[in-house]
């Protein structure tokens, strides 16, 4: 299994440009998350999803949009890139089931620079 795959790994955007960060998981997990991590800081929750067709805002959703049309994919959209969105973005997934499971599996991250 590939686990959680994020693309691209690196990207430089100009102010005002838009892009979609891709995230795919092959573990049939219901829960998926997007976090951003600024240098030397912790992870801030942007959006999350508990299943296909359902998304919810996290701590820092402004400037981002998400969709969850399938269980496998959870893309993150930046419509008008701003320098404040320069960060490393991590996608994660977590299984659900009869027994509570808190282990989230993370992708390798997308390093985004907005200039």
């Amino acid at each position: 299994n590939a686990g959680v795959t994020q693309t691209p790994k690196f990207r430089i955007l100009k102010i005002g440009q838009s892009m979609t960060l891709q995230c795919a998981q092959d573990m049939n997990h219901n829960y998926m998350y997007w976090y951003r991590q600024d240098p030397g800081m912790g992870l801030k929750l942007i959006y999350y999803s508990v299943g296909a067709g359902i998304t919810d805002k996290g701590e820092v959703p402004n400037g981002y949009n998400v969709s969850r049309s399938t269980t496998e994919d959870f893309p993150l959209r930046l419509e008008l890139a701003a320098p404040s969105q320069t960060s490393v973005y991590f996608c994660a997934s977590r299984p659900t089931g009869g027994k509570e499971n808190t282990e989230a599996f993370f992708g390798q991250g997308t390093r985004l620079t907005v200039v």
Partner: protein
Amino acid sequence: GESVGLHLPTLSVQEGDNSIINCAYSNSASDYFIWYKQESGKGPQFIIDIRSNMDKRQGQRVTVLLNKTVKHLSLQIAATQPGDSAVYFCAEKANNDMRFGAGTRLTVKP
């Protein structure tokens, strides 16, 4: 708003010593607390979790303690090794979301 936080940003220990990483939380509605390890250039990796109705949980070389009276969480690493050098995050799960604290950088000196 309520958040997860950490007492110390950095911790340096001698190889072979025990390490203790602390975390304060304020959301009493969280049902699980989790510790993650992040090595340079990688995504966080799950270490251990503890349910909110427990006080202690042990894993391989790690122990997590939960003190609900003072809303404090700690991760103890026994016989710290160079491979333990990383940033450690505590996280809390309340309902469906999972939120992280700022992290502590652990450096192991040979």
